[in-house]
């Protein structure tokens, strides 16, 4: 399986990564190599293997439903580029 240039551009867009035009060919090759490696793995017979979603053989711990966090707005917003009336301000996004 190998990717072409447009695949790489699409992946970069979905990840909101800016790619330097001159690097794209190298990404195409690197990513295609990774997929080829995965393809090799697919040749292994996994019929008797249970799919693994996490490397730890444990179940998720749960917490009881209690409010333990207070208002930390001031601290959290100290690193925000722009705030107003308690809101984070971001470039306008409209549907």
């Amino acid at each position, binding site marked *: 399986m190998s990717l072409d240039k447009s695949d790489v551009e699409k992946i970069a867009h979905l990840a909101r990564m800016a790619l330097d035009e001159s690097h794209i060919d190298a990404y195409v090759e690197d990513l295609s190599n990774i997929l080829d490696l995965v393809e090799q793995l697919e040749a292994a017979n996994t019929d008797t293997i249970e799919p693994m979603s*996490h490397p*730890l053989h444990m179940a998720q711990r*749960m917490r009881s*439903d209690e409010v333990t*966090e207070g208002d930390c707005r001031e601290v*959290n917003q100290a690193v925000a580029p722009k705030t107003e009336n*308690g*809101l*984070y301000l971001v470039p306008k996004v*409209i549907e």
Partner: protein
Amino acid sequence: MQWETVIGLEIHTQLATRSKIFSGASTAYGADPNTQACIIDLGFPGVLPVLNESAVDMALKFGIAVNAEIAPRSIFARKNYFYPDLPKGYQISQFELPIVGKGSIGIDLEDGTHKVIGITRAHLEEDAGKSLHEDFHGMSGIDLNRTGTPLLEIVSEPDMRSIREAVAYARKIHQLVVYLGICDGNMQEGSFRVDANISIRPFGQEAFGTRTELKNINSFRFMERALNYELERQIDLIEGGDEVVQETRLYDADRDETRSMRSKEEANDYRYFPDPDLLPVEIGEERLQRARRGMPELPDQKRQRFESEYRLSAADALTLTLSRAMADYYEEVVASGGDAKTAANWVTVELAGALNKAGLDLTQSPVSPKQLGGLLQRIADNTISGKIAKQVFEAIWNGEGDADAVIEAKGLKQITDSGQIEKIIDEVIAANPKQVEQFKAGKDKLLGFFVGQVMKQTQGKANPGQVNKILMAKLKD
């Protein structure tokens, strides 16, 4: 051409937990912006989500209620997309292996038909924040208080074949989650949000047509209107020789139309993968048994019990069990001495009408169930007639005291002394010789006139049954 409508719904219900699904921040509605968004909700580096067990238990209750398969092991996944109200750049959701699998629920339509709608799955996920677009000098304001609020997304099969069925299904799910106490059901506040997938196909064709997804539906009324608009739009497109494009459309209630939500089209590649921060969720037998034991009586069970225990008609039982609040109110009226059938009429007609007129919720009723039960007792023991009871009801509503106090204060006690009633009837007969003659000549309808006259003389306090009986006897003489 005759078109068949095909609808499937995705319903997001906010679970009624106190804290978020993966953090200890409060979920209370209406707080100051960003005062309930902690570093886990904000996705700061190095934080770890820990699952809220109440969210899991609520999902189990729903699964049990719709006879669904409960996954002994389910997995959280990351759904990746960029939007300012999603600070982590991904939403923690479930993709493969959701906690609740295939189930079903029955709906009843107004014409009496019953239909079973399949539920594909219901999965746990976290809610996003809110974007505010007005008046921030060309920028958007972001409130992340809602971020991380637990959601149960309930996905139906495309089993609905009309807008009425879709609305009935959505109402049924709404009724169920409120009964279960897992969601407050407040659509205005966004606790219960419906997305609808709709397509059309020629009658008899098996393959589905291209569907569109409608978002932003925040009431059942708007849901009906949005679907109607979209249905017409699709028919016009196809009959005009065009094609329906698969897309997400927003319903605009002010303009009563749907419009394309272009920005999401391209982003529809979510690259789900298992969230490495969260281990598989295992549901043991003990937890499942506990959820089963905690199940309340469900609407359908309650309706059947009302029919058999109180001998109510199917229609009355249905109306009285529409909400848990009304069912509880009704049962309290009966427990306070109201006859079951009379109580059903009073709760569904008199009380519901008065509440509707006053714009009040049942929980705000000025007449308590005990007071209504007391009033019905006085009808049952013939202290007052049903007609006078309405007057007493109004007085109780206006805070003039319980039934007995009102009857006493206003002197509304029914006249059951037949000697007294006879005397008044004699007077009425003597005063209206012409009508007596006509009645005797066969004009039976005049009986009503005489009853009316007697009631007028007694200000409605004469026992109607006795009046009828004595009048008949005397007039037939």
